[in-house]
């Protein structure tokens, strides 16, 4: 049986062997192949992720004992700015769409590439240019920015540090993000394989579609906001400067008009990947396909109207505070719809707890904790109490790291074998998960308590009564990092030297599992015709599973 299948699948060169006539690194930097671009993004982003993780560890070390432990207050300010900028602009916003979206969107919809392959490469180059400017801002002139990743005016227009270069980097990264979104939207509209209607599209593509709209409709606002900070610093036009009649609160409005939807740029694709992983490992189709698809669009839409909840203490009017609070609660509805649908999919499924499933399912618990504490922050009275405390820090780390971060790792375990053609050690990845899960909760759960007790965020020192919890959090950060290192080490060794991965290691049903591992250039010999819905598990396959 196996040999007859092997005969049927023609041996094709994988995309790693098609260098497009260039040598070495140029074969990557000049390639318009969506798979190569996806892998370049992945490698760059993981590099910045690890750098930012270690900056985080240093910040935790500073807080382990009272007073100045390792660094001055100013260094600490620069470090939390850099940690935020790297994690948000270089890792988690491009994150899943740029790495896994690039690689798997064309594969999942049965296309040979994205709609504008050269534009795709341009997005990556812009990303690199952004990286260069961010690095320049660190090592030239008056030193790294110390404003926090939010670049709030008026401090950002007055500080002598290198804010101009840092926000210019953010501007360029925004441009790169817009081009990726534009490319994906056009791809989804124009390049779906015959028979694949919108409602036969895998739900990861739906989440990328919703994300693409946010990228296009929100990012320009960030562009103009940071451009105004630059203009303000260079020319002093005064629009955010109270001395000249400007209003700094307007900066916060403009910034959050982008940056709140950006939260959904970060988390929607993660939800999409989980929606791929769950049917694969539960061996049954997704429950509530349309509800999940529409809830992605609903989150994208309502997420646009809630930015004011970042500004409850900034002096905006009571009417707008109540409106923003109400709208914030509304976002919880589509998010909950997704969670219930995932759980309903698992119900009576024949669940196979492989590493991708384990990492993925952690999302549901961690994201729920993050999401429900989000409601604490969304209600006016409690927000006044915990605003700008460690409670907020814990909340968004649960959503971003516990949510998107864990799904990023789940995707590495799920799709990594397809991307790199080799398998990692499954037992070690369980071990890494245990370390990460314990470390993560020790670190951030203690932050919830710290914040509730009144520990403000962004302080390099703490009052004595917070000391015990800070020590616990710092120890948690060590456990978490050990888990991360085990996981990345395992993946690195596995993807370089592991066993060859089969075409469909997990029994997935979407189109990316029908092409060889790793996929050839232009993916499909013949563009497939789609008949079934994406998560159709054929009855015969279930029977053969049962026989085993």
């Amino acid at each position, binding site marked *: 049986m196996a040999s007859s299948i092997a005969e049927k699948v023609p041996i094709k060169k994988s995309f790693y062997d098609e260098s497009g006539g260039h040598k070495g690194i140029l074969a990557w930097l000049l390639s318009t192949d969506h798979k190569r671009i996806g892998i370049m993004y992945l490698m760059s982003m993981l590099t910045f992720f690890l750098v930012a993780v270690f900056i985080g560890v240093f910040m935790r070390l500073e807080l382990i004992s009272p007073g100045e432990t390792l660094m001055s207050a100013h260094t600490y300010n620069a470090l939390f700015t850099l940690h935020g900028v790297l994690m948000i602009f270089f890792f988690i916003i491009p994150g899943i769409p740029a790495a896994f979206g690039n690689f798997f969107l064309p594969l999942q919809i*049965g*296309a*040979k*590439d994205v*709609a*504008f392959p050269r*534009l795709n490469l341009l997005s990556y180059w812009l990303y690199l240019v952004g990286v260069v400017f961010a690095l320049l801002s660190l090592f030239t002139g008056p030193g790294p920015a110390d404003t926090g990743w939010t670049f709030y005016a008026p401090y950002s227009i007055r500080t002598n540090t290198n804010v101009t270069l840092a926000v210019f980097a953010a501007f360029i990264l925004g441009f790169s993000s*817009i081009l990726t*979104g*534009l*490319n994906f*939207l*056009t791809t989804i*509209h*124009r*390049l*779906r*394989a*015959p*028979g*694949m*209607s919108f409602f036969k599209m895998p739900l990861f593509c739906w989440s990328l579609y919703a994300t693409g709209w946010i990228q*296009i*409709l*929100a*990012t*320009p*606002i960030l*562009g*103009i*906001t940071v*451009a*105004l900070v630059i*203009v303000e610093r260079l*020319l*002093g*036009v*005064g*629009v955010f400067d109270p001395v*000249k*009649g*400007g*209003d700094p609160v*307007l900066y916060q409005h*403009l910034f959050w*008009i982008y940056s709140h939807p950006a939260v959904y740029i970060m988390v929607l694709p993660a939800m999409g990947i989980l929606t791929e992983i769950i049917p694969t490992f539960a061996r049954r189709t997704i429950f509530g396909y349309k509800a999940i698809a529409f809830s992605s669009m609903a989150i994208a839409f309502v997420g646009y109207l809630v930015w004011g909840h970042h500004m409850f203490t900034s002096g905006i009017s009571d009417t707008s505070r109540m409106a923003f609070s109400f709208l914030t609660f509304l976002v919880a509805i589509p998010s909950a719809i997704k969670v219930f649908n995932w759980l309903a999919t698992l119900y009576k499924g024949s669940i196979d707890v492989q590493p991708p499933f384990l990492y993925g399912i952690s999302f549901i618990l961690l994201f729920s904790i993050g999401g429900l504490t989000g409601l604490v922050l969304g209600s006016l009275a409690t927000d006044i109490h915990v605003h700008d405390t460690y409670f907020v820090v814990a909340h968004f780390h649960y959503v971003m790291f516990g949510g998107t971060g864990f799904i990023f790792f789940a995707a590495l375990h799920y799709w990594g074998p397809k991307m790199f053609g080799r398998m990692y050690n499954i037992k070690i990845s369980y071990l890494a998960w245990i370390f990460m899960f314990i470390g993560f909760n020790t670190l951030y759960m203690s932050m919830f308590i710290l914040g509730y007790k009144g520990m403000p965020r962004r302080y390099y020192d703490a009052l004595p009564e917070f000391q015990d919890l800070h020590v616990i959090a710092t120890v948690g950060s060590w456990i978490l990092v050990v888990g991360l290192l085990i996981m990345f080490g395992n993946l690195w060794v596995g993807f370089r030297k592991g066993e060859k991965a089969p075409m469909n290691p997990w029994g997935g049903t979407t189109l990316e599992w029908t092409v060889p591992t790793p996929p050839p250039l*232009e993916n499909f010999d013949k*563009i497939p015709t789609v008949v079934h819905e994406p998560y159709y598990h054929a009855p015969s396959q279930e029977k053969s599973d049962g026989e085993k």
Partner: protein
Amino acid sequence: MSQSADLIMEKHFDPVGARVGMWLFLFTELLLFGGLFLLYAIYLNKYPDEFHYASSQLDQFVGALNTIILLTSSLTMVLSVGALQRNSRNLSMLFLVVTFLLGAAFLVNKYFEWGAKIHHGIYPNSAELLQHPQGEIIFYGLYYTMTGLHGLHVIVGMVIMLFLLVFIGRKRSTVMTMAHGNLEKLLGKSLSLTGPKNQKIWQSEPISEEVQEIKLVVKGLITQEKMNSNAVKLENSGLYWHLVDIIWIFLFPLFYLIAI
């Protein structure tokens, strides 16, 4: 729609897709300016008197002239697009040059207008301007930012026109390529070019196995395919130029006419 996906990828040519991409890009441009229009609305509401006074100090005549120039340039852009769609290359290029010149005229006007203001000491952070009431500082801040960003877009549009002139003007075109499997049939044979009376003009060496690819390039000829692809490029650039025009149509009344 998705039925054509195979075809699109084979020929790497999808006019509808290109148009979809362009419209999405135009949305982002509108939102980019949208942030500034939002600021304008809020500050107009906060400082109505100062805005009216400062607006009356701008030169309405130059503003109106620039509006006419830009609207006319949109017309010539449309004429250029129409001409290329009817395969009249030269006419299309002529209109494109006119559009370019109108864009340049707009910038020249803008240069003198800004120059006059700067000559009077009215520019961001100038000692003169800081003496004025806060509302006027903000008005001129927005004036320089918004018309400046718009001017930048005019310049980008003109650079795009230069590229288009090169694309449309280029007369060299590959007619046909043969590679891999097709070449096996030709092994050992040679290609020749014969005149109208069957006289041999040129003959190639016999085709050996080292030959990877044969390309037939005819100079001075433009295939219909090339023509179509240029028409799509021109049409999308036209859309961009109209966007630049539309933004000006909002900037003009907001800065020049509110005091009238």
